[in-house]
């Protein structure tokens, strides 16, 4: 590389940073920087009326997994906390999988409509995506709660004699989360399928591929970036879900998000809340790392 080329390149890089810095400053101030404070707060002592006292303590972290017995002061596993962890992770995984199985055919359906109709179908997906998460949770709640539409209809038809208890169950959380996060799966899947060249399918069929082979060897590999993006976009908000479990779980079926809120609210234990936030963050980062490795591995092999 000549000196002139090097100078040109340095200039391009400097310009790039100048363009990016304003966004980085805002992100540092209001998104990334505050996370460091959460880590610090998890090692402090809870204040009597919320907030913290600035003295070092490991109590917050200890309380994540163990509880001190109020009678004999012995330590034992905090089963309630572990139940909430497990519920959050498993429900998020299942929601992601269900969203994929519902979302992929939908994205494929849209991507294979005639070009002039795609905008309409995409609009139908985009509209719920635009619709407030809270409103969508209300909407699904109105269908499945005891006095809701589904129970009313079933009662009228005589299929059931007493309302089915659907809300305040894990099933309700699943239905609710698939319902609210599905567009986040469909949109990136569609984006990756939109420019799909149908001639590739013709070529595959010409080479005697079965439909299954076409799906597994042609369609899914091309859709991979969309699958990864869609899964991240669904899994991450599920794991930290707060609104949907609060409404459909009725305070009984807490997920991590509700548990964190509890510690910063009525629980008045900010260090414990901060510690759980860090745990949640670590799980999410680990999930993202797995995804990144999956993509990179794919690139190396391919």
């Amino acid at each position, binding site marked *: 590389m000549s000196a002139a080329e090097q100078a040109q390149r340095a200039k391009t890089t400097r310009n790039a940073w100048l363009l990016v810095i304003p966004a980085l400053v805002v992100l540092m101030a209001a998104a990334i920087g*505050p996370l460091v404070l*959460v880590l610090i707060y998890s090692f402090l002592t809870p204040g009597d009326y919320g907030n913290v006292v600035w003295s070092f303590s490991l109590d917050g972290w200890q309380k994540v997994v163990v509880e001190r017995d109020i009678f004999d002061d012995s330590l034992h596993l905090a089963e309630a906390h572990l139940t909430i962890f497990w519920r959050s992770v498993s429900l998020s995984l299942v929601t992601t999988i269900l969203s994929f199985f519902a979302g992929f055919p939908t994205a494929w359906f849209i991507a294979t409509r005639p070009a002039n109709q795609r905008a309409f*179908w995409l609009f139908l997906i985009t509209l719920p995506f635009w619709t407030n998460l809270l409103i969508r949770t209300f*909407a699904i709640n109105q269908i499945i709660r005891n*006095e809701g539409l589904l129970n009313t209809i079933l009662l009228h038809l005589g299929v059931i004699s007493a309302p089915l208890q659907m809300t305040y169950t894990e099933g309700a959380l699943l239905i609710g989360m698939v319902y609210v996060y599905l567009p986040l799966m469909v949109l990136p899947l569609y984006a990756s399928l939109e420019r799909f060249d149908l001639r590739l399918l013709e070529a595959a*069929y010409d080479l005697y591929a079965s439909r299954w082979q076409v799906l597994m060897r042609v369609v899914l590999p091309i859709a991979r970036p969309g699958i990864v993006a869609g899964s991240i976009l669904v899994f991450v908000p599920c794991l930290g879900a707060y609104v949907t479990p609060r409404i459909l779980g009725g305070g009984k079926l807490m997920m991590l998000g509700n548990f964190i809120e509890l510690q*910063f609210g009525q629980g008045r234990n900010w260090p414990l809340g901060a510690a759980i936030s860090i745990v949640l963050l670590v799980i999410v980062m680990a999930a993202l790392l797995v995804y990144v490795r999956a993509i990179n591995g794919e690139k190396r092999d391919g």
Partner: protein
Amino acid sequence: MAKPRAFHVADLPGVGPTALFVFAGLYAPILTLVIYSFNAAPSVATWDGFTFDWYVKAWNNDAVMNAAANSLIVATLAAILSTGLATLAALGTTRRPAFFGITAIYAAINQPLMVPEIVTAVALLIVVAAIKAATGYAGLGYLVVAHTAFCIPFAYLPIRARLEGMDLTLETAAADLYASPWQSFRFVTLPQLAPGILAGWMLAFVTSLDDVVITEFIKSPGQDTLPTYMLGQLRRAMTPDINALSAALLGLTLVLLSGFFLLSRRKS
């Protein structure tokens, strides 16, 4: 384009029915909510005839109007700011050779997508509580800055996607014709990029309007936005005026989105 084919290569078994079931499933609850916002009876169990009463009730409610104003102010400001920042960032990170630090930049921009909202909310609560204690300021500024930050990736993604689809030949041609860098940006890059910027603004606006969790944690007393107001109301019972409010917000979304779609369709 249309050519008759007996064997549709794009058909995969079960796709059509599944997709139509998904669309029906997405819309049935929303439509139910809208229909029952006009129900004179206060529950979905009975239909007592058509009424606008719940809308009138919401419109005459000062708390609702105050929350609506807060929502629109914060969403508008946050969408404009984040789209501006995201446009600059997208110009800085596309169509140039990879440079040291670009991975960190991507990570930073996408951070709000990766970090669970509840964690960001808690983090901001800590910061805002400290700033409030130190300065006493309790305005909408906290919400605008926080919303701007988490809207950046939503604005950035469509803008970047658009930029990546634009090669540099037109800019090179402009430069050959003695356009200054600013002229080539203003008259060549920007017009091509405009649909991406508009899409980014839309996503940012709706992301801000949608936000419940972060707003709930950092708002000052009396600073409800529509979503936090509705969530607060739900603590008591599911009332039809919340249905009406939801339906009204839905209507606003539909009008905005239809407008944008028609606009972008005419352009292309």
